[in-house]
């Protein structure tokens, strides 16, 4: 799931997106991307309007219904409130994940003992769906935003931490030797060598964390909150308002794509100087 699994780490070619390429190819790739989206739209339409039986519920998901529903939702205030609520939760969760994951990742990356001590436990915890923690979250954090922050942080912290520690381990040893030979203090080494060196990996971890946070948001918003895109999806199900459900799926996808693009841009901008 992350760069840690690959020895090439942050130098995986896929992480240098089309934007980095010269103009002509960039345009061609953008065109291909649009064609892919068009194909997706066509498949969607075929699935709901051609393959689904007349009068079946699947027809309510049709783009011909979803797009007007989306326009209707966008005209009212409700959808925007839901978007803001969900974005706030994801950003707070990511903030916690960074605050916990980066120091932990540095520690595990620097100390072989810390790595040996924690790796099995972290690998174990990482594989547990955060939704299994729901009862614990309610017990400890009550109902409302707090348990959702916890669940989102619990899912986002692993990619951040594991990528950070992988970044530390992949640091060019010559840099560390150089800083030692220049008699840098530990904090100077950390601030001026290690942190800039792992930034790219941290951002890659953050990018993975954004993806997975956004994915688990919908079930997390079942926990006694009064707004959010996940909450709204559950509402549309209760009302059998599937055209609105499809519209919200579009919104979730677009926002997720935008967040991922921002993360990619940040990776390109800040990790370029490695």
């Amino acid at each position, binding site marked *: 799931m992350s760069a840690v699994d690959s020895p090439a780490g942050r130098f995986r070619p896929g992480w240098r997106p089309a934007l980095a390429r010269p103009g002509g190819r960039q345009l061609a790739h953008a065109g291909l991307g649009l064609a892919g989206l068009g194909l997706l739209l066509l498949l969607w339409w075929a699935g709901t309007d051609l393959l689904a039986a007349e009068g*079946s*519920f*699947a027809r309510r998901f049709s783009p011909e219904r979803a797009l007007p529903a989306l326009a209707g939702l966008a005209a009212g205030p409700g959808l925007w409130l839901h978007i803001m609520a969900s974005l706030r939760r994801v950003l707070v969760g990511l903030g916690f994940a960074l605050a916990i994951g980066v120091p932990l990742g540095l520690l595990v990356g620097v100390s072989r003992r810390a790595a040996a001590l924690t790796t099995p436990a972290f690998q174990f915890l990482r594989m547990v769906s955060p*939704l299994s923690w*729901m*009862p614990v979250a*309610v*017990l*400890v954090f*009550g*109902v*409302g935003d707090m348990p959702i922050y916890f669940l989102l942080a619990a899912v986002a912290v692993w990619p951040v931490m594991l990528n950070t520690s992988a970044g530390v381990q992949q640091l060019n040893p010559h840099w560390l030797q150089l800083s030692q030979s220049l008699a840098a203090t530990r904090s100077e080494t950390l601030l001026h060598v290690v942190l800039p060196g792992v930034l790219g990996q941290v951002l890659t971890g953050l990018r993975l964390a954004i993806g997975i946070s956004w994915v688990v948001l919908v*079930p997390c918003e*079942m*926990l*006694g909150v*009064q707004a959010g895109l996940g909450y709204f999806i*559950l*509402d*549309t*199900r*209760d*009302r*059998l308002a599937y055209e609105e459900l499809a519209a919200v799926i579009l919104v979730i996808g677009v926002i997720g794509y935008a967040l991922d693009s921002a993360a990619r841009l940040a990776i390109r901008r800040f990790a370029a100087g490695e």
Partner: protein
Amino acid sequence: MTSPLPNEDFLFSRRDMLRLSALLGAGAALPFAGARAARAQEADAPVRIGYLPITDATPLLVAHGRGLFEAEGLRVEPPVRFRGWSQIVEAFLAGQVNVVHLLSPITVWARFNGGTPAKVVAWNHTGGSGLTVAGDIDDVAGLGGRVVAIPHWYSIHNVVLQKLLRENGLGIAAPGAAPGADEVALVLMAPADMVPALAAGQIAGYIVAEPFNAAAEVHGVGKVLRFTGDVWKDHACCTVFMHEDDLTGRPEWSQKVVNAMVRAQLWTRDNRAGTARLLSAEDPRQYTPHSPEILARVLDPAPADHDAYVASGAIRHPEWLSQRIDFQPYPFPSYTGELVRQLKETRVEGDRAFLDTLDPEFAAGDLVDDSFVRRAVEAVGGLAAFGLPDAWTREELVQA
């Protein structure tokens, strides 16, 4: 249990069941009990309602919406909406909410299997559920060899459905097995998924709370085969569950909560159309996402509906004069006893050994504390105010 559906649902799934089982198991309940104790130190906690967006929540939401808790001098927080029985039970056990509506069999299970220190203080509503089936099914016997969805193993819906099936010579298929011709396979499903599953032909019917039967009618995907209130006269579906700490530690507060709830039921009886509007998505408080039309079909049905249901056989006991959903708060002990007796004959998944040793009369006395609701009912003119004979006992009528 094999499900013909990809049952990824978090609401009423098998996983949900396992989670609740674990939760209510003696060991797992301990940390929750600890949290409760910590919460209980908040001696002056406001009324915190937990609810699901179904008509079962009506009295609690009306009491909040009409300001009836404040009228009793109580502080109240906006009701917290949950999406499944597991979540509402978890939040209740953790002390995050202190007044909830729960399916009556869940309260039996919670108290006698999990040892939850909480009691039923009143009934929430009576009736309010139905068995909805596909258009090609004309009687209960027609469900043989088919799949029927239920919302929870410990639900009045499961109890009534299995009673109906037994009376019609149908058994329950073993978990994981395909149903024989004289069997029905049961599958747990979230109410919101039942309507599309019926429309897609993956199930032959479902038994669930309103407004999901009305939704099938409005969307033209099924018809009501029977109303549960026509099988078990004036049965309770959801009951109001409160912590024993609150009942013993601050009885005046508890009394006021029950007073408000009882007054809400009285108001609902006289303002059915208003209730449908108050609970709908058109009210700014957004208590539920449902349209006023669908809610009105349940809460304020046209008189012609009743005649049509009598003609179709959905109502076989018109002389019972049952409403599609009705409201009266008094928890008749005979009902709780009968419920336990019926549960003993009902197939449920998970550890059900406690049912075998549970004495129905003991359960009725131990699970329910009717002292608050009696005072509240007397204060508004006795049971006559709810259209009932002035007696604290009744006979249970269960007729398939």
